[in-house]
């Protein structure tokens, strides 16, 4: 019986495909369904659908999880294992994975792994159960989770052993009764996927508990301003950092979107004596941001890290100010390369959410996206098993750190924080020059000779750029 049904299905599929192929070959392009293929190839599937959404909605499209464009060429950077000239680490030696944030603070924060859970707000982004699951997993791993731009969610605070709260542009964490309960304060002035653009959660999407945590009136929108209220000048910011530091004693840091003005922003952070800087690269995610802000704004994470770490080194503050990298870090390889390039630790957002729902996504598929289990406005948030989700994320984080430890062993290191630019090389001469790492094509002693001999090739590129400028000038 089964064989009969199988044969019937096979013959029906065969007949259908034959007819479709015949039509695709015979029909003119204007009448041909195949015309969808070159059209979609021309504009891209994502762009095609977003054009249709804009045409239908007439407002900016609210795209979840950030830009699909990966601008940081992590795959062009490779680690350098050792064998003889320096030995790999013996396998019975434990690799130190802890990181202390805010060495100058009265109460520094030490995390057990160099991965933290990124800022994703309750209400603005995630459901309460998702936030609690993230906090539980972070606690199990001895690391910190971040409030995102939200008020203080009591259940999240209780579930998190180490809780970083964002002093935010909405003002919801900015009162002493809230920020004094944090283990570190991150002053949020921007993020990779949205720059410093304002955001609004409309009252119709705000439930009772959201209103309570954010202290909103019924019918009031939750508005994130482009500026932090009360901070309009450099001096206002410096004053804010000092008062938060004196009042709380915990590490006080700055979070910004990475931009080409990076060094100018960092100089002010140095003057304010922040304990850490969180740089969110252009690949950073967000719950629902306009595609243009996500795709066309900011500096890629890789270059943000290298520029910032070089600037801190130049200014002699790289021991005093921790650099936290975030934005599009998906694999343990990405994370460890970020550390090698100068970050002390990283935040992960999208990857953490994926890990959180991994086993439970079958509850949503095929009729709902897996994110409907975790986003605040999701239809299936009540179906998320918090403990199961936390365990999935714990397993994921453990697996990531074990993979990092294995790399450390093959590099002959005993601590993840000891991994540096000397432990990587690249296969791209431009990245080599920009990031200050060696080019894998040639031996260390031939690096200069290589660039000298290939100068005409680079000069050709420079001439093109000069030519363009020339045209622009005239």
């Amino acid at each position, binding site marked *: 019986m089964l064989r009969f049904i199988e044969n019937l299905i096979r013959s029906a599929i065969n007949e259908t495909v034959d007819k479709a192929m015949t039509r695709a070959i015979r029909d003119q392009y204007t009448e041909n369904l195949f015309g969808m293929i070159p059209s979609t190839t021309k504009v891209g599937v994502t762009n095609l659908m977003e054009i249709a959404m804009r045409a239908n909605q007439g407002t900016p499209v609210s795209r979840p999880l950030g830009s699909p464009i990966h601008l940081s060429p992590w795959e062009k950077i490779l680690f350098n294992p050792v064998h003889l000239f320096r030995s790999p680490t013996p396998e019975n030696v*434990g690799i*130190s994975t*802890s990181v*202390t944030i805010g060495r100058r603070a009265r109460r520094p924060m030490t995390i*057990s792994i160099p991965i933290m859970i990124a800022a994703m707000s309750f209400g603005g982004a995630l459901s309460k159960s998702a936030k609690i699951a993230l906090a539980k997993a972070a606690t199990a*791993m001895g690391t910190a989770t971040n409030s995102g731009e939200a008020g203080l969610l009591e259940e999240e605070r209780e579930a998190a052993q180490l809780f970083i709260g964002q002093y935010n542009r909405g003002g919801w964490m900015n009162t002493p009764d809230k920020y004094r309960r944090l283990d570190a304060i991150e002053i949020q002035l921007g993020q990779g996927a949205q720059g410093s653009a304002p955001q609004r959660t409309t009252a119709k999407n705000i439930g009772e508990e959201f209103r309570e945590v954010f202290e909103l009136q019924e019918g009031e929108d939750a508005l994130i301003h482009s500026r932090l209220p009360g901070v309009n000048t450099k001096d206002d910011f410096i004053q804010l950092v000092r008062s938060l530091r004196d009042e709380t004693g915990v590490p006080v840091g700055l979070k910004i979107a990475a931009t080409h003005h990076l060094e100018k922003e960092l100089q002010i952070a140095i003057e304010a004596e922040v304990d850490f800087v969180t740089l969110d690269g252009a690949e950073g995610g967000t719950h629902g941001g306009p595609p243009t802000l996500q795709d066309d704004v900011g500096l890629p994470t890789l270059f943000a890290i290298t520029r910032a770490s070089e600037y801190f080194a130049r200014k002699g503050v790289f021991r005093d100010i921790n650099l936290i990298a975030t934005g599009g870090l998906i694999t343990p390889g990405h994370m460890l390369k970020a550390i090698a390039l100068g970050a002390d630790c990283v935040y992960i957002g999208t990857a953490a959410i994926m890990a959180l729902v991994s086993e439970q996504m079958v509850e949503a598929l095929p009729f709902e996206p897996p994110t409907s289990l975790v986003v605040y406005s999701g239809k299936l948030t009540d179906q998320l098993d918090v403990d199961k989700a936390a365990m999935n994320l714990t397993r994921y984080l453990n697996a990531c750190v074990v993979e990092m430890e294995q790399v450390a062993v093959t590099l002959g290191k005993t601590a993840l924080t000891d991994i540096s630019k000397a432990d990587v090389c690249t296969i791209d001469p431009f990245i080599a020059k920009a990031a200050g790492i060696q080019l894998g094509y040639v031996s260390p002693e031939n690096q200069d000779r290589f660039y000298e001999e290939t100068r005409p090739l680079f000069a050709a590129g420079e001439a093109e750029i000069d030519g363009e400028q020339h045209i622009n000038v005239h």
Partner: protein
Amino acid sequence: MQNNQDLKDTLTYIHSELNRMETMAGTLSTIEREHYNKLTNFDHRELVDIAVEEQSAARQLGTMKQMCLAMAQQIEGIRHSIDSGELGESAQHVEIH
């Protein structure tokens, strides 16, 4: 003077206990890591979950070791300040103003 001596004795006690805690954390961390290796030999979901917890415990014990070390260094710094009279001077300075 007697107060200074009491403070120094207390700091010495805390310093030695921190050193002991650091050693204990290091030893326990090694044991937890060995447990992780043993438990991951079994192809059993629950045992693997316990192994993950053991591995995390090993890392957190390693972190405790680092924290003990950092605190012991701070205690040492305070003891030196007392010996060189810096702490007493600054205390007096505060009292004067």
